[in-house]
């Protein structure tokens, strides 16, 4: 049986960051592909729009690290723009059975990044959220 309290501590609060998937406003899909398209008309292929991961994190299988002083806070390499990150979010809440539950852990982290990144040999503007 799934332990609901554990869900609140670990599961549902940590999805988008590791895959650089972004949550979207409204009901739009988060699975829009950014992979390079293989041209079938001999047109140039310069790569896709997927952001580059942080090189020294990606080689270890991670796309980000827990935010703290003096670490790379970005999830994206070749980026310039606004960024905020926080971790250790916690609080209380109530489930649909009326149970009062604590949520959050030291690694519950959220962030936004809004600005310019370089991919597919061109600069791109985008806003990302890490939930």
């Amino acid at each position, binding site marked *: 049986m799934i*332990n609901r309290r554990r869900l609140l501590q670990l599961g*549902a609060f940590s999805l988008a960051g590791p895959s650089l998937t972004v949550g979207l406003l409204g009901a739009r899909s988060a699975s829009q592909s950014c992979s390079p398209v293989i041209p079938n008309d001999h047109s140039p292929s310069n790569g896709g729009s997927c952001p580059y991961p942080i090189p020294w994190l990606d080689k270890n299988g991670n796309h980000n690290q827990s935010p703290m002083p003096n670490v790379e*806070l970005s999830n994206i390499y070749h980026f310039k723009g*606004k960024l905020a990150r*926080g*971790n250790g979010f916690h609080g209380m809440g109530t489930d*649909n059975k009326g149970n009062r539950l604590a949520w959050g852990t030291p690694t519950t982290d959220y962030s936004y990044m*809004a600005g310019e990144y370089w991919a597919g040999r061109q600069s791109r503007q985008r806003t990302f959220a890490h939930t």
Partner: protein
Amino acid sequence: MPSDGLTFSPDGKTATLQMVNVPIIDQPRWPAMDAETTPARMDFKLVFKATAEPVTYEDPARHYRFEGFKASARLEAMLRVESIDFTFKTDPLETSSSDFAVMGFETNGQYYDAAKS
């Protein structure tokens, strides 16, 4: 995400990220390799407020620089796992807290190199 999901106060010191119906996964046994997943949805509001304490994190060897301010960060959220009839609503934003938060401006990779040259 649509850029209008992220808004800033006129002085730039408060940022609000608000999203609804975000597709997520419920994965209680994460990070176990065989941790099962269940589709879920989340609405949330995240608010960062900068303090007056500046911070700069820079590593020329790794080509990154972050310049900004320490911040407070608060979160409220609503989670729904429809397949198991589970919902969870956090208490209001003001009751939450975080251990560490910063907000500012990041430059890395080729943009860092361009700024240095």
